[in-house]
């Protein structure tokens, strides 16, 4: 029964190495909630940009005729991981959780697992 703020807080406090998180509507590219952004790392810009990543992958899947759904997308940088998890469920259609992780401290398998749990608690 978590609300938006506590869900995002839980992303940062319970996932090792998590630095920033956002819940994003990928039709409009708008961040519905953000936590952990800094002036060097604007989460709203990241939300809009990563919307293009999600849309592009969905379009590619259409072209390929794949009927599957995206569970998550992982982008590996030199020192960071960026994880995108698309939300399922009735109200969650068209939303994704975006998570920035410090690569030296993060455990990817655990992060994926915990993100899935936070998603169910958000119940959207």
């Amino acid at each position, binding site marked *: 029964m978590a609300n*938006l703020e506590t869900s995002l807080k839980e992303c940062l406090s319970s996932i090792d190495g998590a630095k920033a998180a956002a819940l994003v509507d990928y039709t*409009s590219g708008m961040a519905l909630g953000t936590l952990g952004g800094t002036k060097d790392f604007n989460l709203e810009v990241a939300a*809009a940009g990563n919307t293009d990543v999600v849309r592009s992958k969905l379009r590619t899947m259409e072209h390929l005729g794949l009927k599957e759904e995206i569970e998550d997308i992982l982008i590996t940088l030199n020192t960071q991981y960026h994880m995108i998890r698309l939300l399922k469920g009735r109200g969650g259609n068209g939303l994704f959780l975006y998570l920035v992780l410090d690569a030296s401290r993060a455990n990817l398998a655990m992060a994926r697992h915990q993100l899935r749990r936070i998603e169910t608690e*958000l119940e959207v």
Partner: protein
Amino acid sequence: MTRVTTTWTTHETTSAALGALAAEGATGALSGERGIVYLAAGRVVHVESAFTPDLGALLTRSGAVAADGWWDAVDRGGRQARVGHRLVDSGRLAAGALEVCHLGALFDAAYFVLAHDTRAHRFRPGAVHWLGAVRSVPVDVVVRECGRRRALLDRIWPDPDIDTVPLTRVPDAGAAALPVRRGRTLTQVDGVRTASQIASALACRTYHTLVELRRLAADGLVTAAPPAPASVAPGPSPRDVVWDDPDTALLRRLRDALEAL
């Protein structure tokens, strides 16, 4: 918080009036041609527009909340402006789901209020929305987001008429292999309905429907319907609706209740 303020009247656009009210930390409802913006302590707490489905329609038609449960929450919480709390406290909806749907509906309505950024009609100091406090958003964030959304639509297909006029399919245009959402939107285009009526039929936010419709227009599948002869006009068009009665929320509930009888 409820002191009478008049500085907003000097501004030519709704967004500038909202900025002035935000700077004063005002609480109340600002009505314009296409909707009403509710402020609390200078922040946007809710927006309503006749062009977009309200929160109740989105929640009940999508199946997230049963219609009985929604009306029960409206009955019990409406007078104290605590409908949102009611839904969550009674276990009908998770707090996060309410916030996400509320923000979705707020920005959806705000797009229409600010896309046609004319002079605001009226400000009612102290007016609160019956939904109650869910989340609040700074005025500048709402204004910026609406600008970004407008730019996004114009990048897809630069014809703002698609947003408001009745739409029709282009004859003989091949509509093979459309993505699910776009295909579903196309099936609702019948030469009579406007984007907001299509969104309502799909129980989908209007802006999200506009994105699909402009893509369909860009693909050459959908175009504005030729204007109907004036003699058979089915009532006033949404464009002519004047929002000078600020209690439209009540009227809308009344209409929905009458329809449900």
